[in-house]
């Protein structure tokens, strides 16, 4: 007797199985380890197509989840009129909170948080010494390549696929010390060097040689702060595959996940060095529940594109309507559960 993990629980909750294909529109950097001035792409060991251990480049599920948590919270807070949060509720929403040991397990609190904030219920959080588990498993993003043939669905398998090692490109960057550029030094304060502290700090006196201050304001003999460094990246045009499980979600919780896609599509980046243009991607995800015979499109997201479909669109509409209602109750003072969860009224998490 065999069973694939698609059976739904016999309750009002639904379990969704998502599969996504992400296309790299620019090189993707995701640092694993540094060797000298070279940062290597993160890699993980898996079982290869021949049943032996093989290493493969991978973008972590934890990193993807972090992106989506931030995006979901931004969507939530904007819908509530962008309130400013005390540090603990801020960290609870954006970072998942912290085990502090201040409280015993508070089941009522967990229940109230799940009901008031579907997004928090989806991602989970730690409050006091209570861990409220999240409801979604964020899969690692794997290159569609020779090493990952065993984990790919049948429709993506290709015995001729190249090794992920052929996707790796090395990008070289230079950081120049503008303080040593004679064309720019005229803009520096006389006698100043190094980085000035913000907030009106006095400039640091220049030093000559072994810590001796310079009295003429001319450049000292300290070495220039410049370097050339290398970043390993997956080449643009490559494709990554990802699985996601959303377990026992209400429609509002599934809508909260869709809100993350919505917000993320406004700046659809993965990995690091985004400021240099790295990590721009576009993706398409499908979904399947225990009631469906085959997967259906869920969402397309990329630069300038966000297209929720089927259950994804319905859930997002429902979630946004819930947030609109919550906002109206919130500003009229009739949403104590949300105020408490956000700590705005000095509730359970607030430091105020």
């Amino acid at each position: 007797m065999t069973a694939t993990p698609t059976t739904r629980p016999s309750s009002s909750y639904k379990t969704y199985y998502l599969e996504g294909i992400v296309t790299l529109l620019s090189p993707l950097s995701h640092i694993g380890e540094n060797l000298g001035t070279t940062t290597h792409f993160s890699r993980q060991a898996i079982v290869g197509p021949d049943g032996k251990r093989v290493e493969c480049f991978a973008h972590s599920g934890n990193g993807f989840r972090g992106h989506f948590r931030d995006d979901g919270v931004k969507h939530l807070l904007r819908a509530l009129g962008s309130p400013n949060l005390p540090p603990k509720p801020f960290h609870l929403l954006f970072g998942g909170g912290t085990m502090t040991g201040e409280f015993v397990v508070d089941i009522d609190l967990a229940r109230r948080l799940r009901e008031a904030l579907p997004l928090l219920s989806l991602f989970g959080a730690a409050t006091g010494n209570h861990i409220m588990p999240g409801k979604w498993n964020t899969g690692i993003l794997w290159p569609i390549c020779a090493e990952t043939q065993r984990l790919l669905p049948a429709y993506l398998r290709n015995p001729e696929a190249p090794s992920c090692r052929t996707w790796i490109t090395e990008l070289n960057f230079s950081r120049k010390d503008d303080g040593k550029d004679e064309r720019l030094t005229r803009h520096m304060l006389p006698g100043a060097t190094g980085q000035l502290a913000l907030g009106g700090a006095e400039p640091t006196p220049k030093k000559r040689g072994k810590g001796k201050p310079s009295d003429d304001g001319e450049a000292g003999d300290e070495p220039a702060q410049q370097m050339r460094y290398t970043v390993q990246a997956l080449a643009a045009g490559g494709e990554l595959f990802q699985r996601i499980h959303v377990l026992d979600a209400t429609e509002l919780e599934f809508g909260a996940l869709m809100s993350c896609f919505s917000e993320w599509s406004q700046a659809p980046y993965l990995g690091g060095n985004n400021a240099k243009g790295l990590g721009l991607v576009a993706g398409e995800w499908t979904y399947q529940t225990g009631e469906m015979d085959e997967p259906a499109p869920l969402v397309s997201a990329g630069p300038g594109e966000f297209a929720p479909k089927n259950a994804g669109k319905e859930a997002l509409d429902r979630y946004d309507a819930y947030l609109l209602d919550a906002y109206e109750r919130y500003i009229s003072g009739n949403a104590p559960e949300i105020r408490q969860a956000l700590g705005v009224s000095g509730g359970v998490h607030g430091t105020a």
Partner: protein
Amino acid sequence: MEPLRVIATLETGQVATFDGNLPLDGIIAAAWMRRYHPDAFWTGAPNRMGEDWIEPILPLDRRVSDGEWYWASSFARYRQLSEEITYWHKRFDDDMEHFLDLGGRSGRMNVKSGPFKSYRMPLVYMVTPELVWHIVGDRGEVASLLGMIPAVGKKRSAGYGFVASWVVEPWPVDLSCHDERGRPMRAIPTRDGPSECGVRPPYWHPVNRVRCEMPAPWGGTGEWERQG
């Protein structure tokens, strides 16, 4: 109830576990709670046994040893290809400071200690194509509950332990608690046992911890070798 063998084929072969035990009754109990008491499952187990404590009724045989009961369900057996270490990170989201209200106090957050500490945490995972268990139970019910389980082990939320398929098949002998040579296949409650361990789900909960005789951590022979 009949002796059964259960095989989980893993998608990537990665399973994060600190002790390698992965008791199947714990996995089945999670599915049972999700099916019959989802609200209680997702809000968490209470501190102590009381009126709100729910004891799962699993489709497994119950055994008793030295006054403690447990389910007829082995710990996982597998052929480990390698043990790996990776890191996960958590940091204070200072880039979202426009949503932060410090209430007029210092603008500096301490991220080296305290509640907002940044973490770089090691995560040990092993690589193995499949996990194997032996149980005595109801085949149809066990398969139905395992169909609700898409991932096993730690850090499932970050993509580890994803399961491609479950196989539940009859097995000629009962190896759920002891192997053919009488060695433990799971934690067996023993009054003067050398270790303290959970004996029934939830395994992590202090109320379920008793002195036990344990399977050899990386021992065994033949099919039951944990390490290839």
